[in-house]
């Protein structure tokens, strides 16, 4: 089975280029990238009509609510949402109920994903049992069962003894640990970033400094243990110098950011709109600017959706009591394209953060448009305008902050291992 994608604008994040050309896919892999006019034969030919063809998105940190809360999101619904959003790999979070902290639960997840999801699913597992920060999980067994990284998600391991042992043990197995950088003493009870807006709304705020404090601590622990470490979301200007230093000093550290923190700021909460309640909370415009800059420069490595489904019941509450998080699989690309349209980042650099870097960090072959790479592809029109109607989302939960937003960028097709997963509407 071979497929030839012709007349495409090829986005190659590895080479940092975009050019006109064709792509030949055979046996689930990219066979050749063709720039000339002489095209090889193929069983199937897809005319990309001059639109973009890029390596599929690897979304690092997706919450699928199985096990425990399948009414919020299942592997089937998340997989459909991912396919519609150009996400070809979901790297899933273990903050389910129960937490994914044993090889048995992990196997359940892997099986459910294989049965139901049209896109690839790579699970992460909890770093400590029950995500309680007391005892480390069976990191070895979990890794053998397919866990690609270890994290307690938004629960910070406060006991540094426990944390350092877990990092040391993970290091011996070459396992990646993902940390949530919020100093919990400061952030406890807060639901917005402190400052004028928080005070005007009378909402408890957390200083942006809580992020830097937690990052500083984690960097010290990484220096101590040699662990492979990824900070899930860096969203404040003050944390960036610490990240720069850690990288300059040769520590094995990378960092991510959610698209929401790059495209929205604290004022979007407006009159207590709980769909804008995120963890960490939305930041000031200055912090948003700094994070965009850091993504463009490559200091922040990974751009993700932090897809967090919440049902209406958990969101339709007073702001302080409402659940945190937003769905993002389907809006990740069009929201990220706001940065492209604002001329803050070019498309190869954008896909470096969306596809290439997360793949590299997890040791995957995906994320590239080169011969030999898996044929995980997204075909999209970066300019197509639309107004998002949350009722059209494939996710079971529709808690998006972009309801009614004007966005640009439509996914025209998604392929996983050369096979189309595009829904025919």
């Amino acid at each position, binding site marked *: 089975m071979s497929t030839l994608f012709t007349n495409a604008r090829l986005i190659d994040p590895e080479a940092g280029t975009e050019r006109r050309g064709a792509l030949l896919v055979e046996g689930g892999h990219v066979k050749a990238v063709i720039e000339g006019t002489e095209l090889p034969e193929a069983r199937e030919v897809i005319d990309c009509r001059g639109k973009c063809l890029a390596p599929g998105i690897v979304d690092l940190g997706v919450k699928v609510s199985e096990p425990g809360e399948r009414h919020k999101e299942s592997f089937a619904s998340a997989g459909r949402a991912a396919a519609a959003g150009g996400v070809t790999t979901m790297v899933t979070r273990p903050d389910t109920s129960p937490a994914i902290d044993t090889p048995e639960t992990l196997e359940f997840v892997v099986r459910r994903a294989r049965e139901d999801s049209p896109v690839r699913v790579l699970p992460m597992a909890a770093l400590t049992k029950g995500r309680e920060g007391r005892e480390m999980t069976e990191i070895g067994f979990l890794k053998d069962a397919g866990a690609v990284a270890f994290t307690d998600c938004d629960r910070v391991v406060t006991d540094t003894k426990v944390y350092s042992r877990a990092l040391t043990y993970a290091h011996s197995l070459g396992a990646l640990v993902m940390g949530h950088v919020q100093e919990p003493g400061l952030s406890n009870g807060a639901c917005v970033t402190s400052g004028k807006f928080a005070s005007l709304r009378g*909402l408890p705020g957390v200083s942006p400094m809580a992020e830097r404090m937690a990052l500083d601590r984690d960097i010290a622990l990484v220096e101590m243990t040699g662990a492979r470490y990824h900070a899930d979301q860096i969203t404040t200007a003050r944390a960036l110098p610490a990240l720069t230093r850690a990288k300059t000093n040769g520590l094995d550290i990378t960092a991510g950011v959610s698209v929401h923190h790059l495209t929205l700021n604290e004022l979007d909460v407006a009159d207590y709109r709980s769909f804008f309640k995120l963890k960490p909370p939305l930041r000031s415009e200055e912090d948003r600017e700094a994070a965009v800059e850091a993504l463009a420069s490559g200091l922040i490595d990974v751009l993700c959706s932090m897809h967090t489904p919440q049902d209406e019941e958990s969101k339709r*509450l007073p702001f*302080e009591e409402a659940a945190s998080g937003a769905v993002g699989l389907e809006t990740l690309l069009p929201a990220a394209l706001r940065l492209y349209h604002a001329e803050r980042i070019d498309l190869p650099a954008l896909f470096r953060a969306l596809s290439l870097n997360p793949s590299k960090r997890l040791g995957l072959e995906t994320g590239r448009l080169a011969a030999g790479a898996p044929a995980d592809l997204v075909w999209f029109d970066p300019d197509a305008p639309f107004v998002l109607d949350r009722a059209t989302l494939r996710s079971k939960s529709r808690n998006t902050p972009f309801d009614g937003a004007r966005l640009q960028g439509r996914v025209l097709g998604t392929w996983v291992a050369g096979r189309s997963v595009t829904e025919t509407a």
Partner: protein
Amino acid sequence: MTFRHRHLLGIEPLHPLEITELLDRADHYATLNREGRAPRDVLAGLTQINMFFENSTRTQASFELAGKRLGADVMNMAMQASSLKKGETLIDTALTLNAMRPDLLVVRHPNSGAVDLLAQKVNCAVLNAGDGRHEHPTQALLDALTIRRAKGRLHRLSIAICGDIAHSRVARSNIMLLGKMENRLRLIAPPTLMPSGVAEFGVEVFDDMEEGLKDVDVVMMLRLQKERMDGGFIPSEREYFHRYGLDAAKLAHAKDDAIVMHPGPMNRGVEIDGTIADDINRSVIQEQVEMGVAVRMAAMELLARNLRAERTGTEATA
């Protein structure tokens, strides 16, 4: 016919002219109340429900009295006791109440923004009687009326707000209202009780009482909540009183005719010296309570007027 809102959720959305209209009506009712001539037909036929999700004696009594003086049918619901314990959400409670077709809903809730949320789900007029640390508009209005009556004007005054500003909805609403009316505001508090971003509020900020009170016309004290007294935000009650409690020595830095206000209930000996609170030449604390009823009468009258106009309008177009 200046005041055009469906609800009274906060001071923030009000125009200075709307504030003036509210205060003028309230002043009128203050006079009628003193003469015992409050008109019983203004809210006749309307149902007022007081929903207090947080304990309050004086505010609830004030709203109840205001409604009754104007002839409304008033019902009090103690919300901690009922639905919340049974796990009903705020929105479900709102929808249930809405089905009983009240006209005026007076709501107090411990969460900021909760009254806004509730107001989106009901067909009646909603009055915010205090939501979390957000707003307490009728308190700010009654403070404004008290100041206007004592000082003869509500602009170009130097006004100090002192105490636990960070956790105070009274302070938020007052900062908003007094700022809109073009007064000079001075906030005085220990830095731990000052809200974040306060420098951007367009006010002067002090952590020293004597410096902050210099030549002010009005001294507004805030209540210090018991749970803030034990080492979390301030070292102790006695150190707080020593540095921030209003006594004669500190008050001497204000203008000679400065008035002293407090939203109540007071902690005598914590934020205010008892003799100052009782000094009839300086303290207007009792007057504040009296104006509270008048302001709430005015607010409900204007909201009822708009509600009736809206209903007639709907019928006319239907």
